C-alpha cells in the first residue's frame, strides 16, 4: 500500500507549522524523517495517522483520500505516538487483545503473546501498567501498533525510552515487516539506531519536507 501526502498545511492559531509538506511512502520502504524540535514532525505524523485534520492538502492510501474511508484507512495504518495510547489500568495482554480484536485480528491473543515474548515482556504480560517504566510502556505501545500487521507504520520517536535490546528487537520487527511489504515512516532524532535498516532520509524544515543525500 502506498501512503501519499501532498501539500499538507497546518497552523495552530497564528503559528504556521506545515507549509505544503509532501511525501510518498511505497510498500516495503523504510523512511526516516528528521527535523529540529518544534519543526512539525509530530503534527505531520498525526495528520498521516488520521488523528489530526490538515488545514489543506490530502493524505492518500493507494491514491484514495483517507478521509473518504476512515475506518479502512485506520485499520491499514499502525501508529505510535509520544503518548502510549493504552489503558494503564489494564495489563499489556488485556490492552493488546482488546485493541487487536477491535481492529479485526482474529488471533489477537496469540499474536500479542508472541510479540510480548519478542520484547521480553512475558513476565509482565498480566501486570497492570500503572507502574511500568517509560521503556516498558514504549514496548507495549509498539506491539499495539504492530499487532494487526498494518500495511503502513507511522512511528513517532519509536526508540524513545528503549534500551539497546529493545531497539534491536524493534529493528528486527521493522525489517520483517519490510519483507512483507509494509511501508514504515520513522520519525527520530536517533539516526544511529535506525541506521542498520538503511532508510531513505528526509528533513522537515520550515514546514516543508526535503530529501537528504
Amino acid at each position, binding site marked *: 500500500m502506498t501512503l501519499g501526502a501532498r501539500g499538507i498545511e497546518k497552523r495552530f492559531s497564528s503559528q504556521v507549522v506545515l507549509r505544503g509538506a509532501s511525501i510518498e511512502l511505497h510498500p516495503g520502504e523504510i523512511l526516516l524523517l528528521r527535523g529540529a524540535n518544534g519543526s512539525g514532525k509530530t503534527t505531520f505524523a498525526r495528520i498521516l*495517522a*488520521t*488523528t*489530526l*485534520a490538515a488545514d489543506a492538502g490530502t493524505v492518500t492510501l493507494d491514491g484514495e483520500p483517507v478521509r473518504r474511508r*476512515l*475506518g*479502512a*484507512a*485506520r*485499520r491499514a*495504518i499502525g*501508529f505510535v*505516538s509520544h*503518548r*502510549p*495510547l*493504552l*489503558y*494503564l*489500568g*489494564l495489563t499489556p495482554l*488485556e490492552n493488546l487483545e*482488546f*485493541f487487536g*480484536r*477491535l*481492529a*479485526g485480528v482474529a488471533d489477537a491473543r496469540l499474536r500479542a503473546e508472541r510479540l510480548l515474548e519478542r520484547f521480553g515482556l512475558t513476565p509482565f504480560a498480566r501486570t*497492570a501498567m500503572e507502574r511500568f517504566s517509560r521503556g516498558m510502556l514504549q514496548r507495549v505501545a509498539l506491539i*499495539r501498533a504492530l499487532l494487526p500487521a498494518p500495511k503502513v507504520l507511522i512511528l513517532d520517536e519509536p526508540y524513545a525510552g528503549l534500551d539497546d535490546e529493545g531497539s534491536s528487537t524493534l529493528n528486527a520487527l521493522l525489517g520483517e515487516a519490510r519483507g512483507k511489504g509494509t511501508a514504515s515512516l520513522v520519525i527520530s532524532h536517533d539516526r544511529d539506531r535506525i541506521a542498520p535498516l538503511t532508510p531513505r532520509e528526509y528533513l522537515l524544515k520550515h514546514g516543508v519536507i526535503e530529501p537528504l543525500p
Partner: protein
Amino acid sequence: MTALRVLAKDLRLHARDARFIATLSLFSLSLVLILSVAFGPFFRDPAREASATLWAALFFAGVLGLTRALDLESESGGGEALRLTGADPFAIYAGKTIANFLLMAVLFVLLLPCTSIFFDVGNLAVLPTVAGVAALALIGYAAWGTLFAALARGLKARELLLSILLFPTLIPLWIGAVKLTRSLWADGTIEPVRDWLKIMVVIDVLGLALAAWLYEVIQEAEE
C-alpha cells in the same frame, strides 16, 4: 461485538479503580445520611424528602462518575487508540453508554434501601415501578453524559464543560424522577404525575438519536 468489548473494558477499568468506587459510594451514602438527619427525625413529607435526597445523591455521583470515565479515556490516550482501531463509532458509544448506565444502576441499588430505611418510605409493591423510573432516568443520564464526555474529551477545561452541558440537560430528567418516585412512595401510583414519564422518554430517545447522528462527528473533532 465491538460494543460488548468496549463495555467489558470499561467495567474492568471501573472495577479495578477501587479507590474511586469507594469514594463514589461513600460520597453518595454520606449525602443520604446527612440529609435524612437534617430532615428528621419527624419528617413532614417523607416521600418528597426521600425522593429528592435519593436523586440529588445520584445526580452528583453521576457527574463524578462521568468525570472519572473521561479521565480514564484521556490520561494515556486510550480513547485515541480506540478511535484508531477503525471500529464503528456508534458501537463504541453504545458500549460506553451501557457501562455508564450500569455504574449508576449499581449505585442506585446501593442507595435505594438506605434511603428507604433512613426515611422510612417505600414498599415492595412499588419497587418494580421505582426501578422502571430509575432505568428511564439513568438511560437518559448515560446517553447524554457519554455524548457530552466525548465532546469535552480533547479540551483542557473538560470537567467544567461536562458539568455545564450536563446540568441543563439532566435537570428535567431528574425532576421527573423525583416527582414519579415521590408519587409512588406517597400514593403508590404515578397517575397524578404521569406526564413526566413521557417527558423522560422523550429526553432519552432524543439523547440516543442525537448520539447516533453526531457521535462520529464529535469523535473526529477531537484534536
